């Protein structure tokens, strides 16, 4: 409870800064309008006109909150104006991609830990894959998959998976290698097989690492899904909402979609955090 006050102070500071920036950035339009009408505006007259513009350079917090509320609660969830509708489209691709990426990441990590050839050959490619800007490769993936008849949620999910497998590989390789020499020697004195060593020692030891990776991975998966929605012609999803907002100069819509995306990401990370707490407590690792 002691943390509430500092948190509120930080939030208040951000809101104040935001309003200040909105007044400052949106003032130019007010002055232009006044100049065109041959009038002059005082600061006191100008400020109210910066707070509720239709196409502000920087929307004010209350405009974004109102738009967000309108998008979340003000429409039927099946409406194309509903952020719930778009959010669900993005979320479904995110989750599918996250599952594929996590599965691939875990399998790759197990291979890397057990096979020296894979250790030497796969890791450099995994790292190289992440140095390519996702914006550059996403349209390629969509086009290539389209040409072989794969459309809809799958191409987006693959872009999601492309981003989310990497933290899982890195975290799981570290986690599966975390048991020290003594623990491996101990299993060797029991005559344990490699499979037994994996199941009894390496996998349980890697669980805390896995959760750390999953938190990074799920956020990356969401980014992947949003980016994947942009080259598909902005039909549906939060990415489409962002893109159409920018086509029509609807800055309030863009910010509302951005906030919807970040709320979604925060919720997903929180969900994994909850699963982490429950799992580690059940395993007896968390005290």
């Amino acid at each position, binding site marked *: 409870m002691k943390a509430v006050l500092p948190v509120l102070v930080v939030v208040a500071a951000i809101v104040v800064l935001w309003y200040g920036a909105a007044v400052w950035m949106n003032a130019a339009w007010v002055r232009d309008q006044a100049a065109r009408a041959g009038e002059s505006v005082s600061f006191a007259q100008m400020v109210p006109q910066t707070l509720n513009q239709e196409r502000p350079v920087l929307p004010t917090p209350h405009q974004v909150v109102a738009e967000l509320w309108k998008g979340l609660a003000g429409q039927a969830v099946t409406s194309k104006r509903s952020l719930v509708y778009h959010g669900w489209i993005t979320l479904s691709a995110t989750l599918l991609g996250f599952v594929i990426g996590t599965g691939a990441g875990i399998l790759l990590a197990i291979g890397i830990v057990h096979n020296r050839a894979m250790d030497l050959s796969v890791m450099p490619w995994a790292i190289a894959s992440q140095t390519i800007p996702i914006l550059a490769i996403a349209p390629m993936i969509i086009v290539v998959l389209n040409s072989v008849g794969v459309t809809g949620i799958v191409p987006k999910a693959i872009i999601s998976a492309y981003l989310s497998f990497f933290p899982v590989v890195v975290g799981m390789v570290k986690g599966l290698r975390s048991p020290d020499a003594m*623990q491996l020697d*101990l299993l*060797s*004195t029991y*005559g344990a097989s490699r499979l*037994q060593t994996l199941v*009894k*020692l390496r996998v349980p030891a890697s669980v805390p690492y896995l959760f750390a990776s999953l938190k990074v991975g799920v956020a990356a998966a969401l980014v992947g899904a949003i980016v994947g929605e942009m080259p598909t012609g902005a039909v549906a999803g939060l990415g489409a909402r962002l893109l159409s907002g920018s086509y029509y100069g609807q800055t309030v819509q863009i910010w509302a979609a951005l906030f919807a995306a970040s709320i979604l990401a925060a919720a997903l990370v929180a969900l994994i955090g909850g699963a982490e707490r429950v799992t580690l407590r059940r*395993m007896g690792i968390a005290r």
Partner: protein
Amino acid sequence: MIEARGLGLTFQTADGPVHALRDVTLTIGRGDFVSFIGPSGCGKTTFLRSVAALEHPTEGTLTVNGMSPDAARLARAYGYVFQAAGLYPWRTIAGNIRLPLEIMGFPRAEQDERVDRVLELVELTGFARKFPWQLSGGMQQRASIARALAFDADILLMDEPFGALDEIVRDRLNEELLNLWSQTGKTIGFVTHSIPEAVYLSTRIVVMSPRPGRITDVIESPLPRQRALDIRDTPEFLAISHRVREGLRAGHSYDV
């Protein structure tokens, strides 16, 4: 039981070969309690690890129960206790002791029975469902001994098992270990840095010295098998301690 003849082990390092063991000849009979004492680098741990097939000697022969160490390892001829308890934090005490039994494929009912039995042996009955972090260091080490005893191998190899514990806990565990040894009749190989510990526990003390790692003296203890802690104040005990110290000095163990 354990027989080493002309055993040598050389590690090839960037600075040239390191002779961890040279010409070690030693026989450990059934039911013996043999301590290995010497400074760091004298090869005592390397010898124990060779018996456990965790290291592979480069010269000489080594048999465990008449088999090669690797075959003996696969036949589960020994239990090994490391300096750190190394209990899995995600398993309860009972779960940790069950680990070797699961790997070796004991039936579930027998696993439970064996876990109960060894917990009683190391006086940890009632702690079965606790997690390792809920136990003191000494209790954790007792649990790790129980884990090594669970599958009832004839040989117990212990590599400085009490080295990280304070002296009071160590005295108590030494006493318990002797009890356990007389109850189970196991053959024990015990590595230590401590002269009193070696003399108090062993029927035979192997004094080793470094560069190259070798045996400088083997002392048959005249002390009776049943001994209480206060035997450490008797002249016999002090005489053996003195001879161990002389053996260490002869091997230049005190040179820095």
